[in-house]
């Protein structure tokens, strides 16, 4: 009794400072910070000394210097007299273009192959299986080389072409040519009509959902939306007097041999580097997306489908309203990382000299020697693309996530 009292009366038992978790934690963290600071100091002093010895002035001034090299595909105004900064911007736009188009096609192909993998038809599911196992086990760089050096070198030379879709499009070694829309005055109204159509569709969809929640009545939002989004611009096109013309690529088959082929500045041209890169990226990533889609659909238990059928839903609405929303919850997180992978993998463009950010940056790096600045730009751009994509997908995922009590 007395011992107990003594114990409670005294100060709480103190462990040695060596064994106190808080003190130890603080000590380790101080150690880590010190080590990082020392490492940082070591790197910075060495770098400064090395730069001084190589006579490279670090800083961002080089961005305003004239670049002096051409870029075969530029989405923004660019010429050889433009600056390095503009060249890098053009490269950045090309990266974004490849990523967006690659993601678009990879998603479509991936979903088709993923569903085909689950088909009851043995031939179709085997084909999908072979597609997936073949493409995801071969390095992407090899696939890019395959498309660029093997497939797109096998197409006709400059003087000939393969034409398809009523001869509107032509493919030869200089790339894929197609008609280019030419916007004449008045065509801006078509754009306004498109925006109006989208806004109206959103309003209709909201109203339809509210009405369905209140009364249970369905409304054909999809058909109305398609009608509004496509119909309004078409109407505007005719009302404003058809202001969009098509500029067809001019193909010359006679005359001097060097002048034969597609004429410069006519029609719309997709360069072969772009075709090879997007084809390889989309097909490669699609094989991963297909597996994700398959896993997602298989994760929805069969009881869900049976319950939907028991409620009287037909197989279309069952798929649309019951299976897919639940499968999407499983699909979205890994799908996000595949989109990010595709964006990062688009940097392989440098191997076939498609002018993306890394490729243009590499040229600038070779010309100026500003290694640190260029690599910093690459890292910042890719990191922010990653963060933006994952932020968007997290937002979408939260909307789709299971709402629990």
């Amino acid at each position, binding site marked *: 009794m007395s011992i107990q009292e003594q114990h409670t009366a005294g100060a709480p038992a103190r462990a040695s400072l060596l064994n106190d978790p808080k003190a130890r*934690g603080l000590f*380790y*963290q101080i150690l*880590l*910070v010190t080590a*990082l600071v020392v490492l940082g100091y070591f*790197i910075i002093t*060495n*770098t400064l*000394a*090395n*730069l001084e*010895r190589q006579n490279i002035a670090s800083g961002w001034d080089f961005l305003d210097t004239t670049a002096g090299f051409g870029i075969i595909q530029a989405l923004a105004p660019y010429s050889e007299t433009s600056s390095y900064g503009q060249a890098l911007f053009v490269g950045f736009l090309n990266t974004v273009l490849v990523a967006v188009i690659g993601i678009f096609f990879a998603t479509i192909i991936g979903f088709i192959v993923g569903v085909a993998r689950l*088909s*009851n*038809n*043995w*031939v*179709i599911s*085997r*084909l999908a299986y072979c597609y997936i*196992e*073949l493409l*995801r*086990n*071969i*390095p*992407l*760089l*090899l696939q890019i*080389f*395959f498309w660029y*050096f*093997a497939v797109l070198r096998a197409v006709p030379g400059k003087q000939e072409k393969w034409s398809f879709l009523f001869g509107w499009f032509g493919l030869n070694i200089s790339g894929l040519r197609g008609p280019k829309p030419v916007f004449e005055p008045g065509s801006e109204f078509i754009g306004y009509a498109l925006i109006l159509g989208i806004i109206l569709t959103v309003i209709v969809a909201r109203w339809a959902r509210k009405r369905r929640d209140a009364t249970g009545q369905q409304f054909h939002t999809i058909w109305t939306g398609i009608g509004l989004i496509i119909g309004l611009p078409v109407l505007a096109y005719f009302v404003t007097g058809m202001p969009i013309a098509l500029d067809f690529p001019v193909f010359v088959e006679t005359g001097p041999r060097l002048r034969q082929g597609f004429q410069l500045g006519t029609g719309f041209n997709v360069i072969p580097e772009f075709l090879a890169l997007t084809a390889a990226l989309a097909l490669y990533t699609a094989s991963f997306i297909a597996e994700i889609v398959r896993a997602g659909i298989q994760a929805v238990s069969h009881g869900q489908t049976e319950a939907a059928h028991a409620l009287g839903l037909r197989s279309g609405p069952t798929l649309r309203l019951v299976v897919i929303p639940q499968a999407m919850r499983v699909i979205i997180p890994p799908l996000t990382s595949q989109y*990010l992978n595709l964006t*990062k*993998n688009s*940097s*392989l463009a*440098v*191997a076939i000299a498609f002018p993306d950010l*890394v490729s243009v940056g*590499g040229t600038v*790096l070779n010309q100026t020697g500003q*290694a*640190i600045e260029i*690599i910093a730009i*690459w*890292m910042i751009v*890719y*990191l922010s693309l*990653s*963060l933006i994509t994952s932020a968007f997908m997290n937002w979408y995922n939260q909307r789709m996530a299971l709402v629990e009590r």
Partner: protein
Amino acid sequence: MANADMFHIRTEEAPVMPAPVSTTGVIGWLRQNLFSSIGNTILTVIGILIAYWIIAPFVQFAIIDAVWTGSDRTACLPEEGAGHAGACWAYVKAYLPQFIYGRYPVEEIYRVNIVYALFVALLVPLAMPSAPFKTVNALLFLVVFPIVSYFLLTGLVIGDNVILPIVETPVWGGLLVTLVIAVTGIVASLPLGVLLALGRRSKMPIVRLVSVIFIEFWRGVPLITVLFMSSVMLPLFLPEGVVFDKLLRVLIGVTLFSAAYMAEVVRGGLQAIPSGQYEGAKALGLRFWQMMGLIILPQALKLVIPGIVNTFIGLFKDTTLVLIVGMFDLLGQIQSSFSDPTWSSPTQGHSGYLFAAIVFWCFCFGMSRYSIFMEKKLHTGHKR
């Protein structure tokens, strides 16, 4: 009584009839799986056509029209008026040593062979779940093997005695470089990845922050920029006079890059261990590293073997990127052989790429099968 004739009571069972031919055997299977409806039949026909369009030209190119023997390009040139020639396997055969060893000196190639043999001899029992002496085996593979193969591959000179002549890394190439980068990357990134994973789950805020920044940084940038960074920027970080050779710089970049991915894989394993295991270990009075080393990590690492194998497959495929910074891995070596005029023919490139594709595919497909096998093995009794 007359009514009795109207009843018939069967006294023995009717003979069992065989199932209709259309529902059993090959025909039944075909009807059920391929021709169950009009839509299905159309799909089947389309599928067979697609398969035919892909397989027929491939077989024609790779086997029927292929040239298997020959000593130079004349063997692989298309005959007059014969149209397209097939694959030129004679060229691949002639170049095979270069594809496997690079420009490693011929009289020293036995050293590479020893490394390959040691690698297989240590990896196979390690990969087999039933093989004994796992701890010894793992130690040999992860600690002793790297040291031994380092000296075997680069050479060993003690004082003035040349025990093994030095072989500079620029002459390494082909599959050797591919395997060196992939295996070193994965073996070196494993401990780093474990540390980062523990750091990310640590209660110390600064440790956690540093780990998160490190992991997210390397995971957010493409490998090619990492390779550029290690080949262009790393030399700037070093004091004057210290020179890392190109292979070492690439290895550093690849290791840091894959450590971030490894950390996420290991973190998944750590999260899968129920907290009772942590609490039990603490209740026994184990310190942090004892708890991790004896209780948590053995369980967590076993759980993530499939994830580690998948990371390795990714890294193995990504080693091809080193050709962009001017190293000769398998793909780079094949590409550089295209400049040889002795074998230049229209199908040289196709044959080379096809060979590379087959080699990479066999490695990656084999590893992914192994990963699936381990996954099934490790999930006994957890299946819903």
